[in-house]
């Protein structure tokens, strides 16, 4: 705590400029994962506070923004952990029906998956593709989205995801399968052109 008001003012300005510099990267990262503006803002604020309190631990081994994102990732995991306690099994039955409707009564695809074309690196470059993917992720129900985001966007081990969400591994497989089916359908109808009129 500094008592010299000028010095203090300068320190504040430096901190704000610093937050300003990293704000977009952090907010973008958080928003993609929690899909909720207010929550993303809270997580970003908590990240900056934790960062100034622990700045001594920043060793400069990574870039500053990478270090900040590392802190943010812990905050995101904490958030999911709290949310997990709240989410119930209500949507379960509805989801079961949805998956069943995706297949015919003999368990075959209905409709069948189309052909996707595109190079991953090129697709990832395209902002419109990213927008489509974001919308598709945004349409997932929370329990599916949390599992998918932790697994695919936070790249956690399945065991770790299960611990955070407090679910069994079989429950995780079910959630990820559902999430992937939904994303697949959403991406196919909104991005990849279904090229083939399948004759049967």
């Amino acid at each position, binding site marked *: *705590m*500094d008592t010299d008001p000028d010095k*203090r003012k300068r*320190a*504040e300005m430096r*901190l*704000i400029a610093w*937050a*300003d510099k*990293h*704000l*977009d*990267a952090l*907010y*973008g*990262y958080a*928003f993609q994962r929690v899909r909720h*503006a207010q929550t993303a*803002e809270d997580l970003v*604020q908590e990240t*900056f*506070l934790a960062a*100034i*309190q622990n700045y001594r631990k920043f060793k400069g081994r990574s*870039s500053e*923004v*990478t270090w900040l*994102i590392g802190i943010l990732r812990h905050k995101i995991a904490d958030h999911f952990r709290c949310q997990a306690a709240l989410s119930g099994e209500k949507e379960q039955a509805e989801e079961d029906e949805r998956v069943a409707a*995706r*297949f015919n009564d*003999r*368990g*075959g*695809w209905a409709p*069948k*998956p*189309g*052909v*996707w074309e*595109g190079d*991953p*690196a090129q*697709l*990832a470059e395209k*902002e419109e*593709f*990213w927008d489509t993917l974001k919308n598709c992720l945004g349409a997932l129900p929370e329990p599916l989205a949390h599992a998918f985001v932790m697994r*695919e*966007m936070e*790249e956690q081990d*399945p065991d770790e995801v299960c611990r955070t969400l407090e679910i069994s*591994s079989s429950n*995780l*497989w079910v959630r*990820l*399968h559902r999430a*992937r*089916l939904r*994303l*697949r359908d959403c991406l196919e109808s909104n991005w990849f052109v279904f090229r083939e009129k399948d004759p049967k």
Partner: protein
Amino acid sequence: MLFTLSCRLASQLLSKAQDTQLTLTERAALRLHLLICRSCRRFNRQLILLRQILRVLVARARAGHALETPLPAGQRRQLLQRIGRAMRKNI
């Protein structure tokens, strides 16, 4: 069970294979099914492609390159002010 694997079940196994090692029986059943099922082969390629795309996007986001700024200017300004106030209390 080997020959009666439905696409629905196959899609579950293909998804699971993205996350964990399948059992021998599961792998054998899946391999047979994929031999005869073009739709499931497609689904599998789509899962792989989806993961590859996400890997690229995630690596980029983690290095601090947000692909876009989803923050409208007004919201951004308010957020920055709020963070400034919070930090002021903590320095």
